[in-house]
């Protein structure tokens, strides 16, 4: 295979249009999957994608078009450069055109991709074997997944961009079941290299939760004061972020549109009673991520014309108020909104946060404690109403203590509305989503939601 840097040089030389950006992403991954305390699948994966974005001058402005291929050989370089140009001409003058960044360097351009592989599990795998053995002897079944990925991204252009970023990412998920699979719980951890994964701690947490489920009650659907762990908050944040394009709001077709005033957004409006902040920042400790924009195609969220621009802190919600919506440069200019680009992480904080999830449980007189949420889907974009299930254990809390497990629920809630019903916030921690795997780097606090709408009972365990 041709080295990424050489590919970029050759493709940009072959491009006979105004500018050409080439994005090469090299990815290696090792993964392990298990069920009923035995390994079920594994893999060592190598992938490489090459995206060529052509910028072609047409009467009326610049057009952009892109083509992505896995592995480019020498004799294919002219073809892919040409195909991107054809795509750009077909697309016509781009609505999101803006001046391209040029002559910028970030990172160690010439260094090769540093591959991850099975060695990343050299301490973890033997521990996993021990945990399997212990679970088998204690009639607990373990199901789960461990994955470590290393991604290197290069952006090069005719105009002199030479940008490179290396991104490690990993996750561990463990489901524990006992009592003929009638009890079930889950633990998730995000990690950069598995050196910080405390598998013994994960196993202990699973055993504690399964033990909590030895006492169980059936309770009805209704609205409950609900303690949500940081992972649940992280899943909710994903749906807030997906509703964040400024253009949709400005056109009146988003929860962040100002109803009755088409063309205006809800920026500046108070969403949360507490001084909550939701932001992305590529330098956030433990969640470091790409310091420049990468867009292989344009959308309401990002623009190929903004490739390589520095990624700075984006304050989505600040001090409880909607502060900014995602706006590529051209969209921001057209709608009179500031340019705003979201990064590859999301963080939620509050100056009023304190304590861990146990301190929040201690504040609840009568309510519920969740473990995770699942199968979350948009029901109504007007209100950002979501539906989903509770999963992996719901617990009843009385007078600040967990008194036993209860049944699962289907819930219907809007995360925008929920921001306004957060009554307490724990300390922000690096956490793992349960469902939204695209959100790899998240820090959030556990929270208390008031009047969380449990719509019906689910029989599922």
């Amino acid at each position, binding site marked *: *295979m041709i080295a990424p840097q050489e590919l970029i040089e050759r493709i940009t030389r072959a491009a006979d249009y105004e500018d050409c950006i080439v994005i090469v992403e090299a990815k290696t991954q090792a993964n392990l999957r298990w069920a009923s305390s035995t390994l079920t699948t594994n893999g060592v994966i190598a*992938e490489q994608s090459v995206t060529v974005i052509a910028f072609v001058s047409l009467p009326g402005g610049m057009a952009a078009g892109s083509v*992505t291929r896995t592995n480019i050989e020498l004799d294919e370089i002219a073809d892919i450069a040409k195909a991107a140009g054809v795509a750009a001409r077909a697309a*016509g003058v781009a609505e999101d055109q803006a001046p391209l960044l040029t002559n910028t360097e970030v990172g160690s351009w010439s260094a090769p991709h540093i591959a991850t592989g099975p060695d990343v599990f050299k301490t973890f795998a033997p521990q996993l074997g021990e945990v399997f053995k212990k679970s088998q002897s204690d009639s607990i079944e373990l199901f789960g997944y461990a994955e470590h990925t290393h991604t290197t991204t290069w952006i090069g252009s005719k105009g002199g961009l030479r940008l490179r970023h290396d991104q490690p990412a990993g996750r561990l998920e463990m489901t524990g079941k006992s009592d003929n699979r009638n009890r079930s719980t889950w633990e998730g951890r995000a990690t950069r290299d598995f050196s910080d994964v405390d598998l013994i701690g994960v196993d202990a947490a699973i055993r504690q939760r399964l033990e909590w489920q030895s006492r169980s009650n059936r309770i009805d659907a209704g609205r409950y004061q609900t303690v949500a762990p940081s992972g649940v908050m992280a899943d909710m944040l994903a749906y807030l972020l997906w509703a964040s394009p400024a253009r949709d709001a400005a*056109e*009146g077709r988003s929860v962040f549109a100002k*109803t009755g005033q088409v063309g205006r957004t809800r920026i500046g409006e108070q969403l949360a009673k507490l001084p909550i902040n939701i932001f992305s920042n590529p330098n956030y400790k433990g969640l470091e991520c790409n310091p420049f924009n990468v867009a292989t195609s344009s*959308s*309401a969220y990002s623009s190929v014309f903004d490739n390589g621009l520095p990624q700075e802190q984006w304050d989505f919600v600040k001090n409880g108020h909607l502060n900014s919506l995602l706006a590529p440069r051209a969209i921001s200019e057209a709608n009179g909104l500031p340019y705003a680009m979201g990064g590859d992480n999301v963080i939620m904080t509050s100056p009023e946060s304190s304590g861990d999830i146990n301190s929040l449980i201690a504040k609840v007189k009568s309510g519920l404690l969740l473990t995770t949420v699942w199968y979350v889907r948009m029901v109504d974009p007007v209100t950002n109403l979501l539906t989903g299930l509770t999963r992996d254990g719901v617990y009843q809390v009385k007078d600040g203590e967990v008194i036993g497990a209860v049944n699962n629920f289907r819930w219907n809630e809007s995360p925008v509305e929920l921001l306004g019903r957060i009554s307490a916030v724990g300390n922000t921690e690096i956490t793992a989503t349960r469902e939204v795997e695209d959100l790899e780097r998240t820090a959030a606090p556990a929270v208390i939601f008031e009047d969380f709408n449990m719509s019906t009972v689910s029989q599922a365990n």
Partner: protein
Amino acid sequence: MTHQVDTDFLALPLQAVSDAAIQSGLSLGASHVDVRIERVRTGVLQMRDTSPESQTDESVTGVGVRVIVNGAWGFASSPEISTTKAYELAKVAVAMAITSGPLSTEKIALAPEPVYASQTWVSEYEIDPFDISGEEKIARLADLNGRLLKSSTVTNASAFSMFVKEQKHYADSYGTSTTQQRVRMQTAIEAIHVSDKGFESMRTLAQPAGFGWEWMGNSVWNWDEEIAELPTLLAEKVAAPSVEAGRYDLVIHPSNLWLTIHESIGHATELDRALGYEANYAGTSFATVDNLGTLQYGSSQMNVTGDRLTPHGLSTVGYDDEGVAAQRWDIIKNGLLVGYQLDRRIAARAGQERSNGCAFADSPSHVPIQRMPNVSLQPNPDGPDLDGLIAGVEDGIFIKGDNSWSIDMQRYNFQFTGQQFHRIKNGKLVGQVKDVAYQATTTDFWRSMKAVGGPSTYVLGGAFNCGKAQPGQIAAVSHGCPAAVFDKVNVLNTVAEAGK
């Protein structure tokens, strides 16, 4: 029209690479080796009003090698297709299997299957969507969106079109060797109304299927007719009253019912899920093996089949990703659970003589797992047409088009919405309502199916984006079904659910 596999795919060193991986794996101690060399090209075109908003053309090519060593799996993949890389991948896969051995108490065995040497299969389509220029695609969608925008009701229009060509060479150490090519298309067009009161939208009902670009003409799906009707239907929805929550008889159109089948039958009858293989991620199933042959899943009118044979089906193939020939079988017969979906490993574990051919991997980077075939509800051969079904309902709602969907991790409790909700009174449609979601438990719902439409109501629906497994995999699947009537289903008002 019958196509051939593209010559540029056949020009890849398919046999040399697969032979190299198989011989290398066997020489290193593997008892089984299978190899897939794949190229999957995906195009996406997204229009915002009459301009392209997003456009991608992505091709993923590579080789995946899977082995069994001492009863344990090993897998490795690369984007590089060469004999040198094939040797290397076999070595890495064998090493992974040896490393995995101590963590694997289940000894992997595969159900037997006849050997199919040098077989070729191509799906039924007329026009390769990648032979159509970008200009023509954009022009077609811009024209459809433009027609919507001529209506005073439609403030904005959006279109999303996706077209896929999947080429796959499979070979294994038994001697099976298959080369296949499939094409599929989907397009959804949405009309949006924005006013001082907020916004409302309605999407087309066209169902994705295994067609080529001919699907975007009017010969397969009548786009002209649907686009012409959409603004009027949207205007009616905008003015419609909000539904009163309660229990209603539902007449569910195939454009909505396919998704309910997918979630509450399709996934629930995956045997790997029922056995617990997906317990950490996608979930398990209430339809466990002890229920086979005894569980009354639905009413006696309920007959559900699995197949990989339906013409233009999204899951239709000649051979699956373990070299098993395509088949058709019963899953639910007269309301009784009688069958599951199987791959070779799960079939062997369940003591079945043969897999029914449900193995699939969505890319060369991923291992084949049991994925959904076309799972379809059969029409009543003597059943009524749509008007006849509606005429039999005194007080109900007729639901068309899919929208939101969610079901729990054991496939009990589900909630679905739709695109159009037409109120039925005394057997007649009397106008739309809005803000409808229906919620039920799977077996309660299917046992309440009191009328099944005839063949004239049957439509092949489906989706491109069914998710399963870790690392996550996507599969396209079709679900054919007639319209059907369900007795007193719980209907929610979504505005009330939002606390408004």
